[in-house]
């Protein structure tokens, strides 16, 4: 079940809100755990077992580490190692086993067979979340959670279960015990959720459709400009999809009384790739910084070691995004650019005019999205080729079509990538027309519903069986 579905909006969410606010506070974590497990098991009920297993061993090891961390460092260390290994094993098995098997088979080593298991939803996110817990206890950054129910509610919490943000236990430990659900907070949650829903349904899905159409064109119809337009729309799709999900997660969290950390900060306004990655999927970057980069020594062991550490982090970041070589390459590309910026480019960029920095950043980002968009390497080369001249024209009637029919979408997307829209919206609060905000919320909700219903529209053109 995704947030942008009729089932979620008009069955699951109202039911959950009703139950959640009807029960007294001390049962709310339990309610949260139960409804989250339902949410999780909706697609693959058997995987609830994987989730419960994950909750239980992380909780047990968290307690053990808490018990030994002061008295017996060695034991605590062993517990931590086992716990991390179990987490990685789960993730590795479900996400990377087939990749490993396929690659070994391609090399002629035949002892593994791909299993073609479905990926448990959100496993990349929740294993990372869960792992932060024993590590933080070990480092004295937080204390063990006495209640398995509260801990379970943290791991499965449906708002951020499927697409983040990756919430560290220490960031919401207090809120699990005492949080206050207020109208003000609920209001903020509504605004945030509706914003996210609009980003996902109205912008990301529409932009995605444009990119798909560009991709369906044959060589005869291709052009350089269309290819660039296509990848720009893909960039919009990815950003609004992902940040829309984060917005919805943060919004739902607020409705339930939680404050999650921000995950995006207008990444497409970045002035360098270094800047871009401080603004894009911040919870993941923070996770890798705290739990991989710094433990590897970060920048404290000399430049050479630091560069290696950067490369390791980016290899892993790429691989985390998907079990396929194009994602690894995507990560490596970013690692390389970040190293170049660190070595000298960043200093040059500081002196360069602002527009040049933006253009430079966006070109790198767009090229990287091509790597991200296609799992097949020949498709990547093909598309890059089109962008850099290997097309049947520079521009043609198709370019004109994409521009004309989607001009409004293009402009709205571009504006929505900047803080402009938000400041405009806040401006509405101060106007004398008090109904502007509620009216806008209502219109956007209705528009989103219309688009979601339409997506299920499936006219059967010729005949009836």
């Amino acid at each position, binding site marked *: 079940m995704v947030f942008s579905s009729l089932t979620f909006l008009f069955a699951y969410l109202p039911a959950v809100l009703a139950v959640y606010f009807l029960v007294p506070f001390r049962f709310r974590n339990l309610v949260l755990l139960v409804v989250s497990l339902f949410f999780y098991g909706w697609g693959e009920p058997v995987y609830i077992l994987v989730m419960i297993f994950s909750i239980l061993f992380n909780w047990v090891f968290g307690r053990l580490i808490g018990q030994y961390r002061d008295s017996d460092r060695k034991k605590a260390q062993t517990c931590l190692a086992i716990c991390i290994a179990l987490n990685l094993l789960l993730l590795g098995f479900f996400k990377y086993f087939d990749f490993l098997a396929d690659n070994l088979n391609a090399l002629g080593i035949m002892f593994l067979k791909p299993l073609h298991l479905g990926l448990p939803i959100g496993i990349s996110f929740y294993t990372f979340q869960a792992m932060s817990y024993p590590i933080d206890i070990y480092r004295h950054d937080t204390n063990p959670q006495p209640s398995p129910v509260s801990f379970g509610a943290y791991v499965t919490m449906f708002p951020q279960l499927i697409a983040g943000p990756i919430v560290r236990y220490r960031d919401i430990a207090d809120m699990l015990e005492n949080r206050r659900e207020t109208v003000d907070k609920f209001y903020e949650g509504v605004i945030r959720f509706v914003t996210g829903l609009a980003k996902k349904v109205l912008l990301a899905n529409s932009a995605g459709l444009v990119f798909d159409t560009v991709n369906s064109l044959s060589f*005869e*119809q291709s052009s350089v400009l269309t290819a660039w337009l296509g990848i720009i729309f893909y960039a919009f799709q990815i950003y609004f999809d992902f940040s829309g999900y984060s917005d919805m997660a943060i919004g739902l969290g607020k409705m339930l009384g939680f404050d999650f950390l921000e995950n995006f900060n207008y990444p497409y306004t970045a002035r360098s790739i270094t800047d871009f990655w401080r603004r894009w999927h911040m919870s993941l970057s923070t996770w890798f910084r705290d739990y991989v980069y710094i433990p590897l020594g970060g920048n404290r062991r000399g430049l050479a070691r630091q560069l290696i550490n950067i490369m390791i982090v980016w290899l892993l970041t790429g691989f985390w995004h998907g079990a396929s070589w194009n994602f690894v390459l995507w990560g490596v590309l970013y690692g390389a650019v970040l190293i170049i910026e660190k070595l000298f480019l960043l200093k040059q960029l500081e002196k360069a005019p602002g527009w040049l920095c933006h253009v430079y950043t966006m070109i790198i980002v767009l090229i990287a999205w091509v790597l991200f968009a296609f799992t097949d390497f020949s498709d990547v080369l093909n598309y890059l080729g089109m962008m850099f001249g290997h097309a049947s024209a520079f521009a043609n009637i198709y370019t004109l079509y994409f521009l004309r029919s989607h001009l409004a979408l293009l402009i709205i997307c571009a504006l929505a990538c900047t803080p402009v829209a938000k400041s405009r919206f806040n401006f509405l609060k101060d106007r004398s027309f008090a109904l502007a905000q509620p009216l806008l*919320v209502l219109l956007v909700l209705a528009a989103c519903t219309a688009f979601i219903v339409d997506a299920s529209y499936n006219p059967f053109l010729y005949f009836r069986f």
Partner: protein
Amino acid sequence: MKKTDQKQKQIRMVVTGVFCLFIFALSVANLFAPKKDFSENENRMLSPFPSLSARNILLGDFDTEFETWFADHFIGRDDWIMRKASLRTDFGAIDNNGVWLCRDHRLVSQFLTCDYENVEKNISYLQEFSEENDMTLNILLVPTAAYGEKKYLPLAAANVDEKALLERIGESLGNQNFIDISDDLLSVNDAYFRTDHHWNEKGALIAYQVICKEVLGRKPENFTYEDVSDSFRGSMYSRSGAFWTPADSIYRIIPEYDIPVTVTFEDGRVMDTMFVDEHLQEKDQYTYYLDGNHGYVNIKTGNANGRKAIVVKDSFAHILLPYLAQEYEEVEVFDLRYYTESISEHIDEENREKTDIYVIYGLDTFCSDNYLSIFW
């Protein structure tokens, strides 16, 4: 200061209320809204409630089945779909769900791209069939409305260059009798339904006249028309979501010298007309012509000239056959999507000179069709 705080507080309450009301009211209304089994607009059965068996829930597709059911029966479904279409046009879109929204309330299917490899494949199947049976094929590929109605298209509507595509196909089929009606089609004002992807009785008449001239070498018959329906809302109407578009008319095609016909379908059903009035009460009124899609149809006429036609076709031929059948004593009609036996067997060895083979397809279906491989 205090007053604005008060006001802010009120706004927050209202926004919260609006949101809750929206999701709760719609959820409840949806729960109690009447459900239907068939969607007129989509021309399909709506999905049933999924099986609640433990097996289906634990290991089956209960989740997706439930979500499909939920969406299929969502309250005010058609209204939402129309809202979405109109919202898109408000924001300057010239198309919705693959349909160009044209001037004069015309809805035209997009023909954005074409799989040239598949075209080559289909051409080679035709060639093989022709060689195998030692017969020259009369091939008529009807351009889509995106070509025939291009003067109504919005600016920047990008489509495959159908003229060039036809020429390309015509060249590859040089040894066959390739009938190109693209220029003639542009000579009439509206050769296509406004709300359907098919051509109409005017377009088909053009093709009939060209066939008379080029294939049969004789003067075409005259026809009159009777308006039998003004409520045809076709496939493009459904797909576009532009439910504000006015309906089309359907015409019965009446030859000047009426001759008796006997139409027999693959299941043995017999009619004495090529038109089915009952279908005028349904959504897809194009099935008025020749009862819609059938794997095999046999038409015998009172025109005792001993001539026979074999027509391999898609639905574009249905409205052409009332004209074309006048020229033959017998017409055998095959739709390869449903007909799986050999067509070659239907070529009467002793009567080869008096037999014409036609291949009649909409150009876009011909390009994407995957059934021609089973030609013989």
